[in-house]
């Protein structure tokens, strides 16, 4: 019984995803919106593993999604002429995305994670720009012209499967990424890793004195978070829109969105990024219909207000509200 109750907090998360899936599948014309919401929930959940659990801000987070996208794109363009690989190519693409984001997070982490607080933020703020200008400047992977692999994808999978992949199955993959990120978050929270990260978030010096290897746990959280970002980039960007341009995949805008989602829902909570992603995605969708171009103008002050007045976010507030009630075990 104990082992099952451990997973109670996952129930609301899975319920939200299940409802989203049902709405998207059964209400006509809704799938696109649901796909966008799933993307934002997954983004929030992946970002939360690092920002929420360590209290460090990675301003270059989108770079991991960027290299993940390149992982998939490079695999597809390179393996297109090999006969009979089919879906194996996609699998290899995801592995490459994982590899690229792991390598990048190791490289960035090796420098940045030695630094604390403000210095860490400074070290990461240029990662996406730096990488973008490296790819453009040294003309790697076709430089600023980018990679376009619509034809290759059609050649590998056939036109029909490729289009089904772009309009439906890629979103299902995003859903799986979101769910696994939620599961990993819970796993971390309920293990030594989570306790160590909480200790270091509250007081890094004290945690060190207590004998916690803070660097090791920071690296674990950093790489995990980066890997989910890489997979998300591969599934949601490379497979849905079969082209990749450096200025688009290293656009700091997505880091901003990830920060908004996590803070809105509640940093370091399990359900927070899902709620944050839903609220952000829905408001972005409707704002882009009724007031196009105003999303950030509206969200920037909201974020400032959240930081100043209720830094714990929506789920953080609910958590305090329902403390010591039977609902408490579902909301973490």
């Amino acid at each position, binding site marked *: 019984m104990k082992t099952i109750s451990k997973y109670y907090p996952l129930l609301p998360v899975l319920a939200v995803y299940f409802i989203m899936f049902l709405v998207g599948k059964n209400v006509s014309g809704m799938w696109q919106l649901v796909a966008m919401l799933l993307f934002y929930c997954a983004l929030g959940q992946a970002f939360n593993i690092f*920002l929420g659990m360590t*209290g*460090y*801000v990675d*301003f270059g987070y989108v770079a991991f999604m960027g290299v993940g996208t390149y992982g998939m794109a490079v695999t597809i363009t390179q393996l297109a002429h090999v006969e009979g690989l089919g879906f194996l190519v996609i699998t290899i693409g995801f592995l490459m995305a994982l590899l690229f984001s792991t390598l990048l997070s190791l490289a960035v982490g090796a*420098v*940045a994670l*030695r*630094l604390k*607080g*403000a*210095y860490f*933020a*400074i*070290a990461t*703020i*240029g*990662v996406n*720009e*730096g990488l973008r*200008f*490296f790819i*453009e*400047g*040294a*003309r790697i992977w076709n*430089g*600023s012209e980018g990679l376009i692999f619509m034809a290759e994808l059609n050649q590998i999978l056939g036109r029909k499967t490729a289009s089904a992949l772009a309009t439906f199955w890629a979103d299902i993959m995003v859903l799986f990424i979101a769910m696994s990120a939620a599961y990993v978050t819970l796993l971390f929270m309920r293990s030594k890793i989570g306790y160590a990260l909480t200790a270091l978030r509250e007081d890094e010096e004290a945690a060190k004195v207590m004998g916690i290897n803070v660097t090791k746990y920071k690296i674990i959280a950093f790489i995990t978070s980066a890997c989910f970002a890489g997979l998300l980039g591969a599934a949601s960007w490379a497979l849905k829109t079969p082209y990749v341009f450096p200025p688009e995949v290293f656009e*700091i805008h997505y880091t*901003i969105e990830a*920060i908004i989602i996590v*803070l809105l829902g509640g*940093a370091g909570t399990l359900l927070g990024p899902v709620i944050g992603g839903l609220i952000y995605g829905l408001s972005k969708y409707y704002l882009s219909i009724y007031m196009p*171009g*105003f999303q*950030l*103008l509206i*969200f*920037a*002050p909201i*974020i*400032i207000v959240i*930081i*100043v007045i209720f*830094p714990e976010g929506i789920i953080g507030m609910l958590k305090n509200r329902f403390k010591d009630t039977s609902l408490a075990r579902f909301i973490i």
Partner: protein
Amino acid sequence: MFFEQITGNLIQGLVLGSVYGMATMGLSLIFGVLKIVNVGHGAFIMVGAFITLWLFNTLGLSPILAIPAAFAVGMLLGLLFYYTTMRRLIKAPELASLLATFSIGILLEEVIKLIFGSEFRGYNWAVGKLNLGVTVLPMSKLYACIGSAIIALLLYIWFNKTRAGTAMRSVVEDSEGARVCGVNVDGTYAMSFAIGIGLTVVSGVLLTMFIPVGINPYMGGGYTLKAFVIAVLGGLASPYGAFFGGLVFGLIENGSYMLFALIPGVEPFALTRFLSFVILLIILLIRPTGLLSTK
């Protein structure tokens, strides 16, 4: 011929560097006094650029007159954001102030986009050129360089000779000790934040005197990154360190552009920007307190 090219590049690099240095002093001042990293730094530079553009294009005022206007606007913005937001975050975890300044930057970008639109703009301030023999320097660049040097000097005098400046230095040393000695620490924080933002907005004016094109609400991002590199070069907490860091960075940027242009098949401009990021990582790795710091 080769010697001339080198000297010409050194001069260009130093002129550029002085403006870069000026553009980083505000960041370092704010970090030195409030221990807050202004992640929205570039957005304030962008505000300065738009003030210059607006004064020049609609009122026909010279960019030199935009300097006091920009400083006033910057001070007001600084006081506004200090009293509404930053004041409550000084004691909060770093995460809060980083995200707050980041959001302030986005807010400024979006407000400017709402007013001016997001297309690239520029202005044409024809004040002639100065031929130095080894290189030709537009007068506008020279004015920007002289302006930066004067402002840096004024800041130095203000810091060392006035009462408010001394109070600020005492807060940098030890804010609790300063409070015990009767320094109005909260007032000093507000003043430092306002002056830091004021300097940053002014640097936006000087930067457009240097590069009067490509003015756009989102132009600040690249400057934020450069300012961080320069600030870290100079030790992050010292405005003068930042000024000299700027000179060094100007030389590096100009020199590396010249060298990258010699390699066939690459885009030198993009590689120069990549290089600034690499420099940042290397300095943070080997000497996070800054190359020019004495400690």
